[in-house]
């Protein structure tokens, strides 16, 4: 059974469940694929070969014993290297953590993937300490986009984006503080989910911004994304930021259940801060769904500003000891920004937090008129590695902080967002749209995504570099 089975996690799980393939063979195939392909994209920071084969053999033993296998049994996956993996040092994209002892236990979400039968094949590269949207990591080189290796894969979960797009793994876990799941999903053309803030446990992951950090899945297929998300859900009494809610499984996405779901397009900021290619993706999605309504979210610019201030302040404060003692060892592309963040006045930070609380309440009014909102995920498609500016209309903005212009406002108030790849019919670089719902309504995001997939508009395109 080839991992390049379209990157279809559920097809792999079904084949193993039916005895058509062994989990060990699938794991070996994934490891071989990484060996063949990763030299060209540099997505992996570590390959957990022994663990992968041990986990796979355990699945095969359960099958041989006649056990009912869990839903992701034998499915290979990888995690951003800010997730604790037992026996592996959690690098979080840095150089300075390389001397730290290995993690003693798995992160909670890694443990849940293991409980679901998934097989961990490695950890994935990222922007240092998650502070970036491009995964141009100076310590280890950039992650390259499988659609064009001269271009970025997005960030900060760029390794996730590239690994899934290249079909080295069908599933990956990443993080999203201001867009770090949605940006790589868009630029690499895969499915990604940033759940509601507090939906998934963050225990055992390296933090960035406690007020804004979300963890979530990537997948090459919508059904794989749903199955992975369901496997990750559940309260965690030992994570104070994790909501005490029972799981809300979304199940297998069904395109026939869109009746009664009101969908609108986000205008204003989400149209002004884009290029024609991003607007065209939203146009295609809206056309097949028959969306004519446009809603303006008056708080979008303010929401982005509050997230920017909170990120700068909390990120700078977290890394202040390293800024004092090991400045030269920090990522050159972000250390000056981290230092600047550590100097943000407390009054700015507190004002930003109060505004976030007020905006969360005001955002409820948006969902009085629509159940799901559509917006571009990124202002543009993947840019060349090393590019420093982004042209939006007559304005030239610094590229690295601006790639999250469209994602940052939405995560600022913790709304659930599903990134759906909407490829151009001409086979151009991939790009995605954001499907946004009210808090705790990820199910609505999946329903709209399923409709887009059934219409043939949303699909993860296969890149030239792939397993």
């Amino acid at each position, binding site marked *: 059974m080839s991992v390049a089975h379209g990157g279809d996690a559920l097809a792999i799980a079904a084949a193993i469940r039916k005895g058509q393939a062994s989990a060990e063979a699938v794991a070996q195939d994934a490891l071989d694929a990484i060996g063949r392909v990763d030299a060209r994209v540099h997505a992996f920071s570590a390959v957990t070969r022994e663990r992968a084969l041990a986990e796979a053999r355990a699945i095969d033993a359960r099958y041989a014993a006649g056990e009912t296998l869990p839903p992701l049994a034998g499915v290979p996956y990888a995690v951003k290297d800010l997730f604790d993996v037992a026996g592996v040092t959690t690098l979080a994209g840095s150089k300075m953590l390389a001397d730290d002892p290995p993690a003693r236990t798995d992160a909670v979400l890694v443990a849940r993937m293991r409980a679901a039968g998934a097989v961990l094949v490695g950890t994935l590269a990222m922007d240092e300490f998650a502070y970036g949207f491009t995964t141009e990591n100076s310590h280890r080189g950039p992650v390259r986009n499988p659609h064009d290796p001269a271009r970025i894969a997005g960030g900060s979960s760029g390794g996730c984006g590239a690994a899934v797009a290249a079909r080295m793994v069908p599933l990956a876990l990443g993080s999203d503080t201001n867009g770090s799941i949605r940006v790589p999903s868009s630029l690499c053309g895969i499915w990604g989910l940033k759940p509601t803030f507090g939906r998934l446990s963050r225990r055992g992951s390296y933090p960035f911004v406690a007020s804004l950090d979300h963890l979530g899945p990537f997948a090459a297929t919508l059904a794989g994304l749903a199955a992975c998300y369901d496997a990750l859900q559940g309260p965690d009494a030992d994570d104070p930021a994790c909501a005490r809610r029972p799981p809300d499984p979304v199940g297998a996405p069904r395109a026939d259940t869109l009746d009664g779901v009101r969908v609108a397009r986000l205008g204003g900021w989400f149209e002004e801060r884009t290029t024609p290619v991003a607007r065209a993706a939203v146009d295609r999605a809206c056309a097949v769904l028959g969306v004519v309504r446009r809603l303006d979210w008056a708080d979008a610019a303010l929401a982005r*500003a509050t997230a*920017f201030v909170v990120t700068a302040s909390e990120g700078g404060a977290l890394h202040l000891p390293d800024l004092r003692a090991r400045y030269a060892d920090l990522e050159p592309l972000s250390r000056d920004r981290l*230092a600047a963040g*550590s100097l943000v006045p407390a009054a*700015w930070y507190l004002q930003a*937090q109060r505004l976030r609380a007020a905006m969360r309440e005001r955002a409820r009014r948006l969902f009085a008129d629509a159940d799901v909102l559509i917006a571009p995920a990124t202002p543009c498609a993947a840019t060349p590695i090393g590019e420093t500016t982004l042209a939006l209309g007559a304005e030239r903005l*610094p590229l690295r902080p601006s790639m999250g212009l469209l994602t940052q406002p939405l995560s600022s108030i913790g709304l659930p967002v599903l990134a759906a790849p909407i490829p151009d019919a001409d086979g151009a670089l991939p790009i995605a749209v954001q499907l946004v719902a009210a808090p705790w309504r990820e199910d609505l995001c999946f329903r709209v995504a399923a409709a887009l997939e059934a219409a043939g508009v949303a699909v993860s395109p296969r890149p030239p570099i792939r397993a």
Partner: protein
Amino acid sequence: MDEDQIRAYVAAAAAAQRLALPADVLERVAVEFGRIAAIAAPVLDAELAPEAEAASSIPP
């Protein structure tokens, strides 16, 4: 804030934070701080209702 004010603030705040950075680094940090300040302007300009002022600073 103009550029001189930003440089002066960054130098003083860095000292207060015990960040002993060389002059060329402080210059770059000042540029980054200027970008934060520009983006933060709507935050500083926004008005909050009195009940929001009294609310917890960290949203639940």
